[in-house]
């Protein structure tokens, strides 16, 4: 079992975005996602994200496979038996994206300052500063951050359309979504809306397992800036049930490493001194 990261919070000082202005984000309501992938296409068009070539995967209608440097939105398709009746098929769809964590490990581990917290509370990688070190890649608990191999290995991810937000427009994916499965707005407002929506969705027996994912400030990353309404456990969609703020671990690791290093140094020094004797 992973130790609850919140328990360790007093031990390590965790940077938590407090923010000045209104925090903006996404509420992705998977109960009305029709899997059209307009979000994937709109994102790529607006942000100039390179094409991918996964070929035909044979995995339902998912030929994008995951969120990554070249796919900032990814619609997951989950085919399974209906959980309530066991009779017939259920086909779940959800458009995954960077979570824009409240405690964003990627941002905290970034040594160059390429990743910053915007005035909208979003987490953005500046590609002209990123040096491709890849620390953020290991830090991200969702596997969102990825280095773009060609041409130079820098990391790319969803910026929540920082450029569009700056001119008062909504992100491209939310704009393109035909069913308003992707909603953009002030995070607090979205959370209220999501609570109400969850109550509606749970009325349907087949969606008894519906829940919000990433809406709580008490989860491992202090809540998502882009949270979800899922129709079942996050694992069903390939999402981590208990995301962990990885810098905690890294800090501890670094701490442990420095102790080990000290011991080693001491040992070496000791042996030297012993030799000298």
């Amino acid at each position, binding site marked *: 079992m992973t130790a609850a990261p919140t328990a360790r919070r007093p031990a390590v000082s965790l940077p938590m975005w407090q923010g000045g202005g209104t925090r903006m984000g996404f509420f992705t309501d998977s109960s*009305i996602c*029709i*899997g*059209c*992938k*307009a979000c*994937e*296409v709109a994102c*790529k*068009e607006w942000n100039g994200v390179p*094409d*991918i*070539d*996964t*070929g*035909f*995967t*044979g995995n*339902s*209608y998912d*030929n*994008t496979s995951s969120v990554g440097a070249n796919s900032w939105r990814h619609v997951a398709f989950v*085919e399974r*038996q209906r959980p309530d009746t066991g009779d*017939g*098929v*259920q*086909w*779940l*769809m959800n458009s995954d994206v960077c979570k824009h964590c409240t405690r964003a490990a990627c941002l905290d581990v970034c040594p160059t300052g390429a990743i910053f917290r915007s005035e909208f509370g979003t987490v953005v990688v500046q590609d002209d500063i990123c040096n491709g070190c890849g620390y953020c890649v290991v830090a991200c608990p969702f596997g969102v951050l990825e280095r773009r191999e060609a041409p130079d290995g820098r990391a790319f991810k969803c910026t929540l359309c920082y450029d569009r937000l700056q001119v008062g427009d909504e992100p491209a994916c939310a704009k393109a979504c*035909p*069913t*308003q499965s992707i909603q953009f707005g002030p995070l607090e407002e979205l959370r209220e809306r999501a609570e109400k929506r969850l109550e*509606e969705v749970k009325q*349907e027996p087949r969606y008894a397992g519906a829940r919000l994912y990433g809406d709580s400030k008490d989860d491992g990353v202090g809540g998502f800036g882009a949270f979800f309404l899922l129709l079942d456990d996050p694992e069903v969609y390939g999402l981590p049930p208990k995301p962990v703020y990885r810098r905690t671990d890294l800090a501890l690791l670094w701490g442990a490493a420095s102790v080990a290093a000290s011991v080693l140094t001491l040992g070496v020094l000791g042996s030297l001194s012993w030799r000298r004797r």
Partner: protein
Amino acid sequence: MGSNMAECHPVAFQWIVEAQRKGGKLIHVDPRFTRTSAMANLHVPIRAGSDIAFLGGLVHYILEQERYFRDYMVAYTNATTIIDERFLDTEDLDGFFSGWNEESGTYDTSSWQYEGGVIHASAGERGAPRPPADGIIIEGAPPHSDPTLEHPRCVFQLLRRHYSRYTPEMVERVCGVPQHKFLEVAETICDNSNRERTTAFVYAVGWTQHTVGVQFIRTSAIIQLLLGNMGRTGGGVMALRGHANIQGATDIATLFDVLPGYIQVPSVKDSSNLKQFCLDQGGAAGGYWGNLEAYLVSLLKAYWGDRATPDNQFGFDYLHRVTGDHSTYQSTLGMVDGWVKGFVVLGENPAVGSAHGGLHRKALRRLDWLVVRDLYEIETASFWYDSPETQSGEIRAEDVGTEVFFLPAAANAEKNGSFTNTQRLLQWHEQAVEPRGDCRSDLWFTYYLGAKIREKLAASTEARDRALLDLTWDYPLDPKSGDPSAEEVLREISGRGPDGQLLASFGALRADGSTSSGCWIYCGAFAGGQNLTNRKRPGQEQSWVAPEWGWAWPLNRRVLYNRASADPEGKPWSERKRFVYWDEAQGKWVGPDVPDFPGDRRPDYQPPPGATAENALSGDRPFIMQADGVGWLFAPSGVVDGPFPTHYEPQESPVRNLLYEQERNPARQVFRRRDNPYNPTAGEPGSERFPFVMSTYRLTEHHTAGGMTRFLSRLSQLQPEMFCEVSPELAQERGLRPGGWATISTERSVIEARVLVTARLPVLRLGDRVVHQVGLPYHWGSRGLSTGDSANDLFPLVLDHNVHIQETKAATCDIQPGRRPRVASR
């Protein structure tokens, strides 16, 4: 049913999602579990091609459980009408109606008539049968009817008898739908159809692309009329069109036998007298078609302007005359057989998108010349050097004699114009960017093609060239691009009055040549000089009907036949469903929509003797395009294959027809020739070679035959290759590996596809028989970034005789693991 709306119409589907959030229920009856099924409250798997058995089962349920909306049905349908005593049903003749002529393969429909008169259809085969001079119905009510519904020959009783064997048990055996699921659908629909509530049917090409396609839709219309769901908000039968502007293309007449506004093209057999032609076409009957002469003369005035005069019958003789069936597939066969020499293809890719692609490519190879205008060099343009036939070595490019002209077309963002969507809504769009290079709009091409032909004919004195030389062809041109003004074209279509002012309504059109309108149903789109199709007032800033968003034909009516939203006295059926109703104080019909009825016609109006057109219908007849003003449960004319929909098996089926001795629609259009072989169907020797049902469809990621999507990387990467969908059971039976290859074969062709194994393809149980289905997206061809074999290559030419549409939603095939055989190049 017959529609995968979430996948193929995702933008329109937002309204379904909104309805569901308000408590609406979505039922999806479909051979596959699709993205629409995923959103549905209930998915009901059905064997492809068996929809009439299912819908007929619903009719049976509604009648036997007495769930019909009696007041509506008696007043607004022909349920009470008594039919000719010579009429015999399929129950009497085991799958045939009376009037079948084995030799010609057609019905003589004279025995299907109302007792006491002959009645015209408002659409379809409108001109036939020719009414005897004394038999024309010109009064509102059909002469013989029985409001008690007890007469054995009244439509209601005939309908009961016709569907008496379409029981839930029969539905299960024919469609593979378990009885409890069928009953759940029936109860849900009936519970939701009454004074307080309405139910809508939505369909697309899953209903049309069958040898009984028109009758699929007719069955749903019967259900909706029985339940009182027509002309009321939330009701109706909604046809989802396959392209953004197919509705507009149909309205302004791309079909060989229809002029703009659904006016029949005169045939060589028709009178050459304009007035007589209009009379023969129903112009003396009740309903708005009674004004046909005004609509037609106004059209002729739009075509020929000052050259259209009373002396030359306003140019009626300039119009071409139809000599027979010149529909798409007949023309294709004409190319193969050498009597069609040239072909102009705009916005279509028949080498991929039409049934029997191999035959189409053969047709293209036999042409003298071919013009293809498209965004990319699609398969229809590359057939001579890049096609399955050249790849196999069967054909060498140097042996193809066709001269191919490929012309680059401008895309929608590169031109002004309007789209007419599925709900008859015209929406104007502005040009965003100039087209690149030599790309030009269709309007540009058509205008300059006409100008060039006229220039070449300028010196001609031949009578046959007058029609071209006398055309009004004087649109203002953009000084920079040379493009004709699209708005001017819309003004011409909308229509002008005697002093040139833009007309507000088709009611103002006259048969004396004083008015012009390029399409009478579009008259008023430019009323008052304002392009009403370009209105973009947000929905939340106006009434919920949103009349100021775009413009809907006719006259900006958003719900057709909305007189039916009120009872015969003009009162709303219920407060909850109040829509268009009679306001006695004001003496007119009121409500948030434009009334689809003469605005001040009292509900108790009775036509005076000798009244014509809309004035011949009484004030309680909402279906104003019908000669008798009511909805037709029984179609005495207009359909060539029967007044009641009847279940027939597809041309190719793995099972026999359980309902009738007659297996297939006797009036379907078949082409028995060596290059169009049919698979043996159930009961014929060799049918076991093709044991599975196959059906084609679209994916969200691609558009129809791929011309607009397979060349775009953003879309191609989402669905990069042709694939087929099979159930785990079929995969196991045939050894198909997920992600591997499969070869699918019919008598026409053999194609290969990657394998997607999915439980979304249901295995159907028909009694003790198990039927497997193979799903085939039809987007692919050899060109572009995303390539693959074409599913349509597998299908034969066999058509619905009413509309000449091919049966590509149900046929038989075999599937085997591995790639298709390859023939070494010569």
